[in-house]
């Protein structure tokens, strides 16, 4: 069972979280400008790497925040977790949509 460090609440058991798949999948600004193939790529195609994976998790039983995790898909080791800013949580960023990053850390 993974131990995931919520950027706000600290390390918590995996069972408190729900998984949100690959991070950095941006919703196209104008979907209608895309070909069917390009739209399919956004919808369904994933990098699914063996190794480091940037992914989204939600602290579902905790603070309900979505955040980013960098995890190795073979060793399952978590390299880091981070607050989100831009679209689809692509870019790790401390600002977290205007919230104080890490204000959630324990005292």
């Amino acid at each position: 069972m993974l131990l995931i460090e919520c950027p706000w609440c600290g390390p918590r058991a995996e069972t408190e979280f729900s998984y949100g798949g690959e991070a950095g999948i941006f919703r196209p600004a104008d979907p209608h400008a895309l070909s069917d193939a390009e739209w399919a790529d956004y919808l369904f195609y994933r990098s699914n790497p063996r190794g480091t994976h940037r992914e989204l998790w939600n602290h579902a039983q905790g603070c309900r925040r979505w955040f980013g995790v960098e995890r190795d898909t073979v060793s399952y080791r978590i390299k880091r977790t981070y607050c989100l800013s831009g679209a689809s949580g692509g870019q790790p960023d401390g600002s977290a949509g205007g919230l104080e990053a890490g204000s959630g850390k324990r005292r």
Partner: protein
Amino acid sequence: MKHYSALGLLRNALGRNRRWTPAWRSAGPKKSYDAVIVGGGGHGLATAYYLARDHGLRNVAVLEKGWIGGGNTGRNTCIVRSNYLWTEASLLYEKSLKLWEGLSRDLNFNVMFSQRGVYNLGHSLQDLRDIERRVNANRLNGIDAEVVGPAKIKKAIPCINTSPGARYPILGASLQRRGGVARHDAVAWGFARAADALGVDIIEQCEVTGIEVRAGRALGVATTRGAISSERIGVAVAGNAGVLAKMAGLRLPVESHPLQAFVSEPVRPVLNTVVMSGAVHGYISQSDKGELVVGAGIDAYNGYGQRGSFPVIEQAMQAVIELFPAFSRVRMLRLWGGIVDICPDACPIVSKTPVEGLYFNCGWGTGGFKATPGAGWVFAHTLACDRPHELNAPFSLERFSSGALIDEHGAAAVAH
């Protein structure tokens, strides 16, 4: 290949079993092949066998990075059935089931295919509607299927809990009597032996590390045992599909997840059939040696670790005890995981790719063991003819752009 027969067995026994020869040669890679199959699981081996048997393509190599059958083929809960919802899917699985029915004879290798029936339980009114719908569709497609009520279920499976007071009471089930289980390892070995006899090279400890693509054509593979050229490359690596795709510069609509299963200690026969439940997520059968073989759910996260998280096992245990309260004192012997390749519509991809001469068979997720002979059969056709068979045509990559998905989530929520 030494043919297995009753007399041969006796003769060999008298000869102290010293005259047996390898079931498959340990072949070294040649420089080039007419077709290369990546992945020595059931699907890859079956593909090679049918290529050789039905399409006359015998200069074929199966490249396996570890030992054959060591992937999901060797770690699944062995459930075989064809009662899927959509016509496209059920016809493909039914083709496979038909092949299963003659497989031991075809291969001259007893894969211990046991048609002990498969029950899919329903616990809510919506479950019952879905069961009714699927059973009716199956029947119209010529697939055996019936709806059974709690009393009949109880009669067939005396240790099951059909009490109406259960948290998720059993309200009914679909039953496919021709469904059942097969001996997983034997499937890999049987196909390997039969393919080898037709001249296929089965090359273990040979990991594909690159795919050579020039001008949109596949030309060969790089392996840990040297480069191998071939203009026809079929990839059947299940959970590793994404890794192989990347080697050819492709992405797939597939994600790899851990899926776990466990066995109990061997106990005297108590469960004569296969029981699956989507709502109470678990599925269970008893092996010929006596272990209860139980499948759990997938872990939500991507993973290549062949192991998962323990809470998933706890949930499967709770589910088993809900269905079979007396199994609480049975003990778990061993638990393991496999890497399953999940598609958005819970249906496989058996398809050409944008790279000419490169074909993928993947996305079987939690339910491709039952498809082993059928998938091999249609994949062989696809490789040999450079176009899909009508059975796998709906399972192309194009469906993700066109939107013609075949959503088996309902029927395949526990898709084993």
